[in-house]
Each structure stands twice: as C-alpha cells, then as structure tokens.
C-alpha cells in the first residue's frame, strides 16, 4: 500500500544543510497498522508530510497504491490528520466536513449522510452546529479524525493523533483506531508515546535523526532484545 | 477604522468652525495655521493615483475656504498658486477659470488673472467666457483697451457668445482710438447681428463715428486754411466749413483739443 524507497529530505537553515530524513525505506502492507516512533526532532512529522504531499522529496520515492505521493490520485486515497489540527475559524463543525467533502468532489447527499455518521463516531454529534473556534483541543483532534475519514481512505495517515488528549480521549481514539483496523483499514501513524504503539501496531519503526534504527513487530522486538519496548527504545537512541 | 473616519469628519467641521469664527476669539495668529500649502502640480499628480479631478476638487474646496476665511497678511498670497494648481489638475474646470478671472484682479493679482485666462483659452478653446473675462481684466485693471478689444473679438467668434460681445470689441477699439477698426466692427455687427438691441446700438455707434470722421475732416480743412486748430468746434460753423456741429445719437458731445486738433467725446 505505502512504499517508501531511499527517501531523503534536506532543509537549509542559516546556510547549513540539515538532513532531516536520511535514506529512509519502509513498506506498509494493506490492512496493517504501522507506527513510526522516535524522539522529538527525529523527522517523524517531516516523513508524514512527505507522504501526504505537503513536502517534496529531495531524493527517493514514495508511492501510495502505486501512485507517487503528492499526486492527486494518491491524495484521493489517503486521509490525513496533522499534528495540532486547525480549522477555519468562521466555520462550524458540519461546515468543515462539508468543505472537505467538496474538495473530494463527493456528492452532497452522500456527504451529508457520511458526515452524520462520522461525527457520531468521533463523539462530536452534539457539536455539529458549533463554531470551530469554540472547540477544545480534544474536540479539534476528534474533528480532524473525522475529516481524515470523509473519503473512506485506503490509507490513513495520522501525525501524533493522541498528542495532548486527556485519558478519556486517548481511550476513545485507541478504540476508534482498533475499530478501523478490524474493518481492514491501513493506518500509518507517528508518535512518541510507546504504550499506544504496543497496544495497536502490527509493526513499528524507530526513527532517530532521520534514520530507521530498528524495525519489526512490537512483540518480536521485545522478544529478541528481552527488554520492554521502552527500554529498547531508550537504548537504541542512546547507542545510535 | 470607523473612529478614524469619524475623527476625519470632525476635523473638517472643526477646521470650518475655526475659519469662520471671529479672529479675536483665538488671537490674530490663528490664520497662519490655515494658510494652505499647495503641492507643486507634478507632485500632486504623482500622489493622486490618477484621480486628478479629485485633487482639483480638494484644492478647489481649500481655495474657497481660504478665500472665505479672511487673511491677516492683507493679501491672499496663495490665491494665484491655488487657482493655477486647480487648473493644472483639471484643465477643463471652467468654473475655476471664471472665478479666478473675477477674483484675482480684485485681490491685486491682475497679471496672474491674465495668465489664468490665457490658460483657459488654450484648454477650453470653444468657450466664449475665457476670452471675454480675460478681456474684462485687460479693460478694468490694466486699462489696455487694445488687448481687451482683441479678446472680445476672439470671444465673439465662439459659439453661444452673447451678441453684444462683438459690439464691445468695437467699443474698446474706439476707446483705444482705433476708430477705423471700431467703425468696421460696428458696421459688421450692424449688418450681421440678429439681436435688435445690438443692431440699434451699433448703428448709433456707426453714425457717431461717421460724425467724428466728418468733424476731423473739417478740422483738417480749417487747419489747412488758417494754420491752426479751432479752439471750439463752433468755430467750424462760424468759418462756414460745416453747416452745424452734428449731434451724436449717443447723446455725447464732441469736443476738440485745440493743441492737436483731435476730436473726442466730452467726459461729463
């Protein structure tokens, strides 16, 4: 579903070239839940943005369902939720979803039904006519999650989806992701919270300074190193 | 921004109030504050975003306020400059030229008025008012009757000029002692005008001038015979050169200057 080959991305800061993503390669199979973990500044958000076409690769290739990332066809297949999602202040929740539905050129009747379903799913049914500027952070994230699913995407890309949520919110989100997993969705998400990863992911990759330093299913990684994932994580980072 | 707008309107009203309130309320010097500082024409055009007519209006309003506000300097120093700027920005602003031609000479700027008039003639070539008003300035303030007459002749050729315009040209030439020219003009007017009053007046002027020429011929004959000029016109009758001194249809008496034999009108 998602194939990344030799992806490299560099930025120029104060006349210095910084390599944020360094020769990254990974594959996410259909129906998998893949977690990209790493400390702050590892390049997780950059990778996510490269997959969703907001940034352009310096070197390497990314394909989604066979289409290059950033192309319109690829974007039709994905649902994207970015870190700290923001919406247009002047809109209500329902209007945000209607706007996004228009961007996907979804028919009005179909969209209206789907919007109701999604809002219920993410727990925002009562807030349907509420102006977005009055939303709490948790509500923002829920709405963003709904937005990401409006087009029934083949691949869901989530950047730090559980960041900043209260325990109740985190529980809700995890349940939603598991539910989607059961229905066969492919999910790629980045996070620095390891407990989430252990519960939900089929496969994880540990990212450090733009490079993958460990990859595999959580169970396998824990078994082979005979440590908890957290200990493994810390040691890998320290040793890298 | 709404408050900015309100303060702007308040400022206009405040300025008007200050201008029209009596000076002794606030001390003599307050008018210094209001003396306008018009921009140069090229600078004004540059900042106008192309809205030259708008700027012309703005300076027109400034001019009116300035003129209406009195001045402690005894003279409206900026008046000519303002008229010049307004007409530079809006060359076809006829009202501005006319007002300037009327006001400027009275305030002590007859030359600037004439310059303004020339500009008006150039920019509004079809207007009869431009040469007409300019001619008036020549007559009233510069006592330059020939120039006045020329202006009136030009004015008379424009569409819609009042019928009496050409007649006035004749009057001015007569005043300037250009009598032959005046006679021709009166004759033309008399023959061509459709206005009864004007035709009648022109006819009378013609007769008057004919009489003047008649008298001058007689004076020349007298001079030839007696080597000097008659001291009064009656002498021409006494010496039997003419039968009688003609009475002008204009009701003006003829007099003679004994020094040079010139026949002119008595100024009673």
């Amino acid at each position, binding site marked *: 579903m998602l194939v990344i080959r030799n992806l490299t991305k560099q930025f120029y800061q104060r006349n210095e070239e910084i390599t944020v993503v360094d020769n990254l390669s990974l594959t996410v199979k259909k129906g998998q839940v893949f977690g990209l973990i790493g400390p702050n500044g590892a390049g997780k958000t950059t990778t996510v*943005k490269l997959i*969703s*076409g*907001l*940034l*352009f690769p310096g070197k390497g290739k990314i394909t989604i369902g066979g289409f290059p990332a950033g192309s*319109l*066809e690829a*974007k*039709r297949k*994905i649902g*994207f939720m*970015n870190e*700290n*999602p*923001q*919406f*247009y*202040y*002047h*809109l209500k929740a329902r209007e945000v979803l209607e*706007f*996004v539905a*228009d*961007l*996907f*050129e979804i028919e009005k009747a179909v969209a209206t039904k789907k919007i109701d379903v999604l809002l219920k799913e993410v727990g925002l049914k009562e807030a349907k006519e509420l102006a977005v500027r009055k939303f709490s952070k948790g509500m923002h994230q829920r709405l963003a999650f709904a*937005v990401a699913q409006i087009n029934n995407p083949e691949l869901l890309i989530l950047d730090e989806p559980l960041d900043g949520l209260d325990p109740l919110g985190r529980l809700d989100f995890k349940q939603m992701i598991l539910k989607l997993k059961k229905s066969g969705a492919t999910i790629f998400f980045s996070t620095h919270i390891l407990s989430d990863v252990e519960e939900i992911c089929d496969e994880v990759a540990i990212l450090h300074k733009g490079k993958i330093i460990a990859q595999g299913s959580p169970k396998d990684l824990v078994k082979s190193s005979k440590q908890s994932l957290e200990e493994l994580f810390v040691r890998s980072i320290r040793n890298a | *921004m*709404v408050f*900015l*707008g*309100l303060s*702007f*309107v308040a400022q*206009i009203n405040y300025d*008007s109030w200050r201008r029209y309130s009596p000076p002794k309320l606030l001390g003599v010097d307050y008018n210094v504050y209001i003396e306008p500082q018009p921009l140069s024409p090229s600078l004004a*055009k*540059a900042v*106008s*975003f*192309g*809205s*030259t*007519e*708008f700027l*012309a*209006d703005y300076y*027109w*309003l400034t001019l*009116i*306020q300035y003129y209406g506000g009195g001045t402690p300097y005894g003279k409206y120093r900026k008046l000519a400059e303002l008229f010049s700027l307004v007409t530079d920005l*809006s060359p*076809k602003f006829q*009202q501005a030229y006319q*007002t300037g031609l009327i006001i400027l000479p009275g305030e002590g700027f007859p030359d600037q008025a004439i310059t303004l008039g020339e500009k008006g003639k150039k920019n509004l070539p079809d207007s009869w008012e431009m040469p007409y008003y300019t001619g008036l300035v020549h007559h009233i303030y510069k006592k330059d009757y020939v120039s006045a007459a020329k202006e009136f002749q030009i004015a008379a050729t424009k569409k819609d000029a009042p019928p009496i315009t050409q007649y006035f040209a004749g009057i001015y030439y007569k005043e300037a002692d250009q009598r032959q020219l005046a006679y021709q003009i009166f004759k033309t007017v008399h023959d061509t005008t459709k206005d009864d009053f004007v035709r009648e007046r022109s006819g009378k002027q013609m007769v008057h001038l004919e009489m003047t020429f008649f008298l001058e011929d007689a004076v020349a004959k007298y001079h030839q015979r007696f080597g000097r000029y008659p001291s009064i016109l009656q002498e021409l009758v006494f010496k039997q050169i003419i039968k009688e001194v003609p009475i002008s249809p204009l009701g003006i008496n003829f007099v003679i200057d004994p020094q040079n034999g010139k026949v002119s009108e008595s100024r009673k």
Partner: protein
Amino acid sequence: MRKVLWAITLNTFRETLRDKLLYSLVGFAVLVIAASLLAGSVSLGQDARVIQDFSLTAMLVFLLIITYFIGTQLVFKEVERKTIYLVLSKPVSRETFYLGKFLGLCLTILVAGLIMAVMFVIVLFAKTHSVPTAAYFAAGAVILEAWLLTAVSLLFSSFTSPLSSAIYTFGVTLIGHGSATVWLLSQKASPVIRGILEGVYYLFPNLEKFNLRNDVVFNLTPSASQVGLILLYFASYTVFLLILGVAVFRKDEF
C-alpha cells in the same frame, strides 16, 4: 475541478467577510461618500463634481486597502494558522488552491465595490437628480483595477512576507499610475535609459487605462473599443500575473 475551485473560492470569500477589517472599510467608505455631500454644499455649486470625484476616489482607495491588507495575507494566514495542511493534503492542485484564493478575494472586492457604488449612485441622484452613465463605467473600471492589483499582491505574497508584499504592491500601484510620466521621461532620455524606461513602462501595469474617473465630471462615456481594450488588457495582464504566481507557488513547501 470546478467544484473544488468553487469550494475554495466560496470559503475564501466567507473567511474575508468575517474579517472585521472589511466591515470597517465599507463603513468608512460609506462615511466618506456622505461627507462628500457636505463638501459639495460648500463648493460654490460644484456639488455634482465633488460628490462624483470624492466617491469614486474613495472607492478606489478603500478597495485597494482591502487588496493590500487582506490580499497579501491570504496565503500567509493559511500557513500561519496551519489550515493550509487541511486543504493541500486533499486532492487539490496547487493551481486550484491559488486560483481559488484569488477568485475568493475578487468576489469580496466585487461585493464591497457594489455596495459602495450603490451608495454613491443613491447620494448622487439625491443631490443632482441625474447620474451620468460615465459614472457606472468608472466604478466598473475601479473594480477591475482592484482585481488586477489583487493578482499582484497574491503574486508577491507567494514568495515574501505580507508586509513586504503590501509595500511592493503599493509601489506597483504608484508606478502604474505614473506610467505616462515614465513614457514621457523615456522619450527625452539617452538610448540606454530610454530602453530601461520603456521596459518599465511595458512591464508594470498601466493602471491609468482603468482610470475613467476623470471623465465622469464631463460625462464622457468610453467608446466600445476603449471598453474592449480595457477588458482585454485586464484579462491578459491578470492571467499573466496568475500564471507567474502559480509557477512560484507550485514550488512552495509547507
């Protein structure tokens, strides 16, 4: 594609409407038009002139303020508030996004311009009981000029900060209105300078083409060919600006 374009256009339009700046501008313009009534009455009978000139110039100034302040921030705000991620991660091409922003602001300017024009016509009619046809043409041309400068401000804002864009766009406005002076200067200059100045004359938008305001006082309506020329110039120059802007914007990363 058209549905997507319209969605972004409408969204941009609604977003600028909620911007309080816009309301104050329209209100202020309305105020100035009313003030011109006052000025007209102390102008020695030149009411019609004053009302027409003041109103049309106010219309231009305030539409341009909308362009400078809102137009230059259109893209910047999206990036700052991160709403741009919302849109560009969807199947929306960069061209569509850019064009949608442009059309949205044009719609805003059209609405604001129409409100101002209606007020102007009402005031003029109330005072003088006649509205010269030239006035409608002049108002229309003001709106076209604002649209063209919107394209300019959008172009600048795709590669520089809002403040710089506003300053550059203002500069373009001044030069655009002074193009006649530039041309005259060029005719008198040495060949090298002449070449440069002529280049400037053709490169910068000749905004005086859209200046029908000075003819309103004399009720000189533009001929059909003049109107055609204005529209053609507007269309071609604006399209040129949009193509340029899209080319830059395409390379932008977020």
